[in-house]
């Protein structure tokens, strides 16, 4: 397979700039090249359970990858990507056994599986029955199959249904949204959207650039057009501008089996494929092209800047002094950008500091609320051993939801911060943003589970002992008193008192046991939540630190490149002062030739992006950034 066009363009640019010996600029292009080759387009298939998600994925890739059953639901995400041979890889959660594991995942060796047996093989790992309660502790199952649809880097992820009995899945799906390039919300044609589905959509459009709604099972419901209309009305009422695609997995499957093109058209899948190709893959491709253009143009502009400065100096030696002055100032500014005291550094450091505090406070606040509710529940609920299962499940679910919401918020804030920092540089903000590594925390699986001691020794023997202790005191006390009026130590009165006191001791003891259990349950919940705050807090701090480091390195590199370009220009200009006329003439023709070459390169690379889009892309940032008076502004190569 030939490398994609943007990669070829980068290779060409690399070859062109090789002669200038600018290793830093070459590194920037190499990085861009690496990013292009590594690119994946992740499509998440989400929805409530039993809506036909797995069948949709199977239909999309025309292969029986995900198991489809009437009853049993998917419990573990299945990741379907391109591979030369059908292979299954299990991805286990790491750090479960070792507290504070590094969050990396353990991948099993890929197993080759014939394509007909894929679904059965996968079912053993991802279905509720094959892997009940995810006992195999898998975080995903990866399936590689040789299908052209996937060859462009498309990765389809079949997620467990949201809202099943175990809705920790919902939180996990939400946390996966920021890393997805597209989300397909699957809902079957039996009914219009429900409140939770629309709520999910609302959140999804905030986190993911491409969201589409898929209406499945249109073969089964004659009224599916009505439902589609109703859904569209709901989407409109909620101001959600998402496309609605109606498909039938069954018909598609039939079409795959028989190779009937007309049937395939009826299934509605071609429209879905078109959406994925044009909107999702197309957009990702466009983004890749645009960033390639910007990278190449930025690099060549820096080279051209140096050359132009030299050209001007050679042509007009009298202006050299003034030129040197300007260049020195610009270079001074560029050098200042590298300093710790540069304003973008302040913005970044302060921003990360604020972010850390806010995220931590948000997490603690959410957790405190959960603890409060759980404690109320325990206090009012009598003996907690009876309701422990429900309470602990509730706490776990609430905690999962809270951490995922917290994470989503942190991601959004981090992105916003990156844009703020980029604002200090005068280029197109979007384009120079690095890819932020915000991976969701897997800390929840590393936290020890909540437990309380179920069987305390409070059996017959214990009770009898307590009763005897109480009654012994009673008999003794009242017996002693009654001996004073002449009765024997053991008499009916003292015996009665003994029985009464014995009973009272038992009931007291019982109340004490319940109170102790309640205390224990409260402590257990607190300890669990504390553990979660500890782990998740550490993970989110780590994540922010990574973000900070990435942004700092990225922008420092940018500042370095500018500084270096200006230095080169300065050096060339200074050298030109002492040059002879003949040298000058020769150099001027050389410079003209080189400028010509770089301009041609730029023009060629620009053709990667259709002109209309490019014009729009170029117009916006200049408008946005024009009025700013930042130190970064001066670094736009002054000579150009």
């Amino acid at each position: 397979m030939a490398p994609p066009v943007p990669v070829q363009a980068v290779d060409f640019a690399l070859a062109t700039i090789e002669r200038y010996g600018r290793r830093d600029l070459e590194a920037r292009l190499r990085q861009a090249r690496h990013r292009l080759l590594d690119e994946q387009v992740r499509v998440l298939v989400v929805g409530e359970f039993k809506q036909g998600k797995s069948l949709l994925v199977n239909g999309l890739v025309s292969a029986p990858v995900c198991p489809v059953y009437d009853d049993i639901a998917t419990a573990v995400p299945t990741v379907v990507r391109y591979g030369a041979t059908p292979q299954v890889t299990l991805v286990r959660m790491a750090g479960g056994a070792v507290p504070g594991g590094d969050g990396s995942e353990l991948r099993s060796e890929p197993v080759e599986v014939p394509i007909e047996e894929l679904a059965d093989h996968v079912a053993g790992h991802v279905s509720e029955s094959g892997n009940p309660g995810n006992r195999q502790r898998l975080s995903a199952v990866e399936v590689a199959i040789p299908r052209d649809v996937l060859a462009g880097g498309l990765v389809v992820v079949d997620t467990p249904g949201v809202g099943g009995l175990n809705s920790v899945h919902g939180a996990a799906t939400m946390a996966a949204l920021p890393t997805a390039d597209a989300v397909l919300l699957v809902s079957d044609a039996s009914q219009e959207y429900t409140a939770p589905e629309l709520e999910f959509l609302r959140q999804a459009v905030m986190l993911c650039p491409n969201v589409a709604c898929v209406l499945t099972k249109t073969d089964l419901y004659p009224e599916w057009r009505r439902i589609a209309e109703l859904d569209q009305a709901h989407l409109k009422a909620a101001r959600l501008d998402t496309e609605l695609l109606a498909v039938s997995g069954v018909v598609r499957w039939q079409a795959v089996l028989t190779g009937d093109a007309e049937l395939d058209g009826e299934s509605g899948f071609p429209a879905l494929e078109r959406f994925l190709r044009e909107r999702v893959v197309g957009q990702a491709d466009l983004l890749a092209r645009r960033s390639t253009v910007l990278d190449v143009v930025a690099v060549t502009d820096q080279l051209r800047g140096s050359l132009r400065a030299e050209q001007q100096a050679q042509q007009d030696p009298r202006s050299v002094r003034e030129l040197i002055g300007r260049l020195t100032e610009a270079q001074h500014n560029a050098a200042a950008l590298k300093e710790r005291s540069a304003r973008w550094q302040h913005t970044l450091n302060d921003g990360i500091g604020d972010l850390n505090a806010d995220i931590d406070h948000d997490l603690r606040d959410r957790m405190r609320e959960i603890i409060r509710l759980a404690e109320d529940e325990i206090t009012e609920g009598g003996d907690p051993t009876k309701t422990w299962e429900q309470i602990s499940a509730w706490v776990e679910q609430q905690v999962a939801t809270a951490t995922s919401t917290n994470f989503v918020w942190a991601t959004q804030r981090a992105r916003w911060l990156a844009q703020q920092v980029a604002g200090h540089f005068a280029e197109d903000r979007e384009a120079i943003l690095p890819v932020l590594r915000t991976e969701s925390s897997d800390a929840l699986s590393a936290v020890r589970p909540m437990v309380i001691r179920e069987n305390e020794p409070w059996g017959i023997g214990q009770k009898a002992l307590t009763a005897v202790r109480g009654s012994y005191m009673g008999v003794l006390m009242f017996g002693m008193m009654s001996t004073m009026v002449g009765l024997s130590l053991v008499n009916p009165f003292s015996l009665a008192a003994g029985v009464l006191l014995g009973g009272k001791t038992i009931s007291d003891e019982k109340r004490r046991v319940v109170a102790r259990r309640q205390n224990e349950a409260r402590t257990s919940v607190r300890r669990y939540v504390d553990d979660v705050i500890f782990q998740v807090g550490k993970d989110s701090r780590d994540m922010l630190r990574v973000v900070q480091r990435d942004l700092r390195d990225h922008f420092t590199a940018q500042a370095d490149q500018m500084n270096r370009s200006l230095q080169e220009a300065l050096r060339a200009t200074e050298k030109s002062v002492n040059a002879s006329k003949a040298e000058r003439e020769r150099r001027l023709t050389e410079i003209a030739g080189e400028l010509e070459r770089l301009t041609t390169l730029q023009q060629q690379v620009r053709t990667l992006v259709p002109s209309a889009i490019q014009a729009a892309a170029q117009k916006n940032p200049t408008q946005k950034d024009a009025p700013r008076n930042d130190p970064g502004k001066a670094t736009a190569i002054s000579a150009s």
Partner: protein
Amino acid sequence: MNDHGRLCAEVRGVLERAVHAYGDRPETRERLCGQLERLDGPLRIAIAGKVKAGKSTLLNALVGEQIAPTDAGECTRVVTWYRDGHSPRMLMYPRGRPPVGIPVDRRDGALVIDLQGLPAQDLDRLVVDWPSQSLRTATLIDTPGIASLSAGVARRTVRFLNPEDDTPTEADAVLYLMRHLHACDAEFLAAFRDQGVARAASVNTVAVISRADEIGGGRVDAMESARAVAARYRQEPVLRGLCQNVVAVAGLLAQTARTLRHTEFVGLTRLAAASREELEAALLTADRFVAADGPLARAVPDLPAAQRRALLARFGVFGLRVSTALIRERGADPAELAAELLRCSGLDELQAVLHHQFAQRRDVLKARSALLALDGVLRDVPCAQSGPLTAAVERIFADAHEFAELRLLSALRSGSVALPRALVGEAERLLGDAGAAPAVRLGLPAETAPGERRVAALEALVRWQDHAENPMLGRAAADACRAVVRTCEGLLSHG
């Protein structure tokens, strides 16, 4: 059972005393009179579930007439009561105002409910009086769906079935419809159980897997698949504590089977005349089946598209597959077809469950509802007679073994009282889990002779007396055994 009659009489007596005691407070009196009326009336079964679970369709199937309006979109927006009456009549109860009559209008059999411009949230309920044999034994209450997009609609149902204040719910029993077991279904059922109701609501709830034919994608074996799902849910610990039983029903098919028209049968016969392959190819999608020109239109030219559309709407893909197969292979006539479809839809099974688990227990359920309501009134609005009346209510609660049975049954199902595993099944059966009739409780066929039944009851009694005295059992378990012993004694004295 005579016992139930006695219980009702006792409850009625207390209620009458209370009505007398509250003679000077018309509002409270009204409430109590309502309870008295309810005690004499039929059992009230509410049909609840998520949006589009098929509540109105199932209601129609149970009534045997297509009266409740159904639609592809969300349809029921107000709690609607369907009860037996001499002549059709519709009353609308706006909140805090006297009821208003609305004209009865039907379109294609279904009632046209015109709220006369009143917003649904201002209405407390709609009451439909309808002359029907099926409604004579039970008043059916259709409720708006839970998790509906219009939050107000969902709230009305939750408020109706699970009111926030302490007043007991208006329904005696609940049919909970779900398509798959969803977290919010379980939540709802759990909330419903927690509601005071003597902590025993799971005994009056039956979960229904509605639209069961769709689980298997309308294949011919779809119902078997759905029944397997129901069997699995029955064993699911979460559901066991929340409801009595789980039944799979294909609501649409049941409704159609009970209201099968001759024209439809004729249409089906024509369809059945087409070859099996042609029909299967056409039934691949709903769109193909109703297409104006296609292979099917050529194969069955005397069945226009409009009729095919109507057939599909009434039978669904599954219903069409099954009924054409029945006509083609067995040459079924209309009556046979209706009966077979009814059996296939699972409605028979649901009716049997309703009969065993609600109808036979209805006096107990009604008495319990009435006592709880009275108890609430006594607590809220004290009067001179409060003391003795409260005592009377408590005495009935403590005395009536039926309540103890219900409570124990619920405790056993939710697992809050643990009997040894080997005993649970028999205990539940003796307590009337599968049905209140003596033979059913003893696990004998219905036609068993009284003598044999006595022998069986005696054996059970001796066995459970042994269990009750088993020193290895905890106190709660021993209490449970003693309650079962009392049940056995009752069986012996009646048998």
